[in-house]
């Protein structure tokens, strides 16, 4: 009989709280899916760099999963609290019938255990199947061929899911037992009848709090726009604190203000059931504004993370077109111990080591980079090519002290012709500037337009053109040339000009692939040989166009995976909490909506009111979150300094994800509540 009761209760709860179980199910499913990446990749034949990438991803996933499990844990404990509240009366009946508290505790424990087992099992089954589909995506992500389909089962993910969710359910059981042991019978039986007091704040208090919240938010937005995302300044922390406070105050005052605002328009207030809906909303926001605020912040995180996360992956490859003008670039930095700082030909050195560049390169060109010493520790900085009053405009403090790279006009034109671009011509005492770092470009341009001159070693140069040239010296992953000075060749013979590095840019022959060339390099300069000092590379590192593209896509893929994981969990958690709140309120509302029906309100009128009430709860946090996100995305994109970063497309994708998941929860809540109201009505007959 006891077990029969347990089973009946569980099936009944499952029917009443479909949303809770679906959320648990999806939580488990997502958790397993994203943790099974190790198994998904282990079956793939990966190149070395891809293997590294997958290891990074797996390791990051480990950390994130701890965080995710905490979030899900909170969600489950919170949702369970709702379930228990709803069942207070039922527990009271058990106690009246003489069931001892210990037995009720066992009953609840068994129920929770059963619910946990069912959702865990169902979630894992779903997760195992979903991860098969995901492995195809993963394979494409790591550019591995899925030659044959193999069923993948990740033992570690399975164990991890069991462990984490086991702990979560254990905590839930503890909570439940504790709450059972502390209750009083009278309060259980009277649970349905509660005299809730509604603190209606005075209008001016609401207005004041609202204005305060708007001020907080405005200040937070301003701070974060000005200071950016660097957590080193106190402004960033302050903006987060202010933003949270502003959000809390916003929801605290909003319902009151909304109520008063609509009340002042009597026509609107007394139309249909608007009065009822607003009062409903207002009566609960006083107790739920904290959770609504948290939900708003979670949505904010989800929206900005998804928009930026997905957007970055697109932008990286868009930027790469411009930052990788060459098929390969080798760079060598002169060291302090390099005795003779004379120009060395990298091509010649490669040839000496048995690599004939002509066999691989259609064309190649070497650029020698110099710095200008000024007798002090720091060399001449890029600030000498900027107006003095622009120092405050620099993206980072004291960036103007960053050493200025100098190259000769002939090197510059070799670089340009290698890309098939027209050459630059300079007069005897003229200079030009290369830069493609977005934030510095306007600063150089202003200096050039004003005809700012550059003096060094007794020589003065004037600008040959009034704009900079958006050029890179070598293949890079981002637009990071912070400024290169182009000078007539003779200028570099001045004393104090010091050679810094050599760059060799290569355009492959048509029949040579990137892999082929790199293989030759690796073959000659093997790790073992270098360890034995048998050979030394004439370069410190190389970037190749293909390599940069692959690395970018890999990083972007990791980013997308992680943001998708965290974003989805947050989104589901936020939507589930809202949905559960509304559903548990629906039982209170049954009385009220039933009364409306008895007073003669039509079904459409009542349903409309219910829809409006739930829509208010779902929409308001979303709206504020969208505003937060707009600011957040703006700051993040300007911070990332990716010219090709277009968040429009990724925001669109995010909007669709939100619409589908959040919308589904909204509709489920609406129809669930509608059914609950209808059921009670029929039952009453």
């Amino acid at each position, binding site marked *: 009989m006891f077990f029969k009761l347990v089973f009946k209760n569980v099936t009944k709860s499952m029917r009443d709280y479909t949303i809770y179980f679906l959320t648990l199910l999806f939580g488990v499913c997502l958790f397993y899916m994203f943790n099974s990446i190790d198994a998904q990749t282990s079956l793939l034949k990966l190149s070395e760099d891809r293997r590294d990438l997958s290891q990074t991803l797996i390791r990051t996933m480990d950390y994130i999963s701890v965080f995710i499990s905490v979030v899900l844990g909170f969600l489950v404990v919170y949702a369970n609290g709702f379930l228990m509240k709803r069942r207070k009366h039922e527990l009271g009946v058990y106690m009246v019938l003489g069931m001892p508290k210990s037995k009720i505790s066992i009953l609840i424990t068994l129920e929770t255990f059963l619910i946990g087992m069912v959702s865990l099992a169902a979630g894992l089954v779903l997760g195992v199947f979903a991860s098969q589909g995901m492995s195809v995506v993963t394979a494409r992500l790591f550019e591995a061929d899925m030659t044959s389909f193999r069923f993948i089962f990740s033992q570690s993910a399975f164990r991890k899911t069991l462990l984490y969710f086991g702990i979560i359910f254990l905590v839930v059981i503890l909570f439940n037992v504790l709450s059972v042991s502390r209750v009083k019978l009278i309060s259980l039986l009277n649970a349905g009848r509660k005299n809730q007091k509604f603190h209606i704040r005075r209008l001016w208090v609401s207005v004041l709090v609202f204005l305060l919240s708007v001020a907080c938010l405005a200040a937070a937005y301003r701070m974060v726009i000005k200071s950016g995302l660097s957590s080193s300044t106190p402004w960033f922390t302050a903006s987060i604190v202010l933003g949270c406070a502003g959000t809390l105050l916003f929801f605290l005052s909003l319902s009151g203000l909304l109520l008063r605002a609509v009340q002042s328009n009597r026509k609107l207030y007394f139309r249909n*059931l608007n009065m*009822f809906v607003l009062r*409903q909303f207002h009566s609960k926001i006083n107790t739920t504004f904290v959770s609504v605020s948290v939900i708003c912040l979670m949505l904010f995180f989800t929206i900005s993370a998804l928009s930026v996360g997905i957007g970055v992956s697109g932008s990286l490859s868009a930027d790469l077109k411009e930052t990788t003008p060459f098929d390969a670039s080798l760079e060598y930095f002169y060291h302090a111990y390099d005795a003779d700082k004379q120009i060395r030909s990298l091509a010649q050195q490669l040839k000496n080591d048995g690599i004939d560049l002509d066999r691989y390169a259609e064309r190649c060109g070497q650029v020698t980079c110099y710095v200008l010493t000024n007798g002090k520790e720091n060399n001449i900085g890029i600030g000498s090519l900027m107006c003095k009053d622009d120092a405050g405009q620099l993206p980072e403090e004291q960036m103007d002290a960053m050493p200025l790279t100098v190259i000769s006009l002939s090197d510059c034109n070799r670089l340009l012709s290698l890309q098939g671009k027209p050459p630059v011509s300079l007069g005897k005492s003229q200079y030009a500037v290369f830069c493609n770092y977005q934030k510095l470009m306007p600063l150089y341009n202003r200096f050039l337009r004003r005809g700012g001159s550059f003096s060094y070693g007794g020589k003065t140069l004037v600008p040959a053109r009034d704009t900079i040239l958006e050029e890179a010296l070598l293949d890079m992953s981002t637009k990071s040339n912070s400024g290169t000075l182009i000078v007539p060749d003779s200028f570099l013979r001045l004393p104090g000009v010091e050679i810094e590095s050599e760059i060799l840019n290569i355009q492959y022959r048509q029949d040579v692939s990137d892999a082929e060339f790199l293989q030759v390099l690796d073959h000659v300069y093997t790790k073992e040989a270098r360890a034995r000092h048998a050979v030394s590379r004439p370069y410190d590192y190389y970037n190749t166009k293909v390599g940069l593209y692959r690395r970018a896509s890999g990083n972007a893929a990791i980013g997308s995976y992680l943001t998708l994981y965290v974003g989805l969990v947050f989104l589901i958690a936020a939507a589930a909490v809202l949905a559960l709140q509304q559903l548990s309120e629906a039982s209170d509302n049954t009385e009220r909506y039933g009364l409306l029906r008895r007073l*003669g309100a039509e079904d459409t009128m009542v349903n409309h009111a219910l829809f409006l009430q739930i829509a208010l709860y779902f929409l308001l946090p979303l709206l504020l979150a969208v505003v937060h996100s707009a600011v957040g995305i703006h700051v993040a994109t300007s911070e990332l300094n990716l010219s090709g970063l277009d968040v429009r497309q990724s925001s669109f994708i995010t909007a669709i994800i939100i619409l589908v998941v959040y919308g589904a929860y909204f509709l489920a809540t609406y129809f669930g509540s509608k059914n609950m109201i209808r059921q009670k009505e029929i039952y009453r*007959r």
Partner: protein
Amino acid sequence: MEPILKVEHMEKYYGSRGSVTKAVDDISFEVRAGEFVGIMGASGSGKTTLLNCLSTIDAVTAGHIYLEERDITCLKSGQLSAFRRRKLGFIFQDFNLLDTLTAYENIALALTIVRTPASEIDVRVRQVAKELEIGDILEKYPYEISGGQKQRVACARAIVTKPTLILADEPTGALDSKSSRMLLESLETLNKNLLATILMVTHDAFTASYCRRILFLRDGKIFNEIVRGDNTRKQFFSRIIEVQTLLGGDNSNVL
């Protein structure tokens, strides 16, 4: 005067073929406009079932109910709610005020449901409130006012839409004697001054003594009917007690 409510051979059965409970068994009666009618009977006599059928919350098994010559047993569900909100006013035992709304808004709610223009609402709410002497508590919430005041707000809500018939289900059931008296006096005023037609279900003789006419139900049938006529309330009260004694007695004692 024309009867505004006419009940003809109304029956309401519960249960399936095996065991049928005749909650209301062939009842016929009429209520004229401006009447204050009481329906009395012990628990299980069919009072509430009768009221539910009259208020269209429940459907009859057989028979007809005419309200202003319209047979409400033939209405479709869409018409039912329209009928309910236009023609009927309800007063419940447990007030059934919305705790989230002020007294004023609770009264106005009934008007918004029948889509009264906003400009009219204020006038009508204040008028009714004045009549029921609750003008000074209109801005209070239900939890801030006494039971008697709550029930008078509920009365105001029932009357404000100017319904053809007010159905009151044990309106004094949750009130103390003083509040009960005040409420019943209010109902009397509504009946006399605003010519409201009231049908009140109660099992309490004192409450019933405020009515002009009383129908006694027993086991789903009308057992007796008494009219107050020129009697004082006290005399009428004694007569009610007499009938109740009869009702409570055995069948053999009935005339």
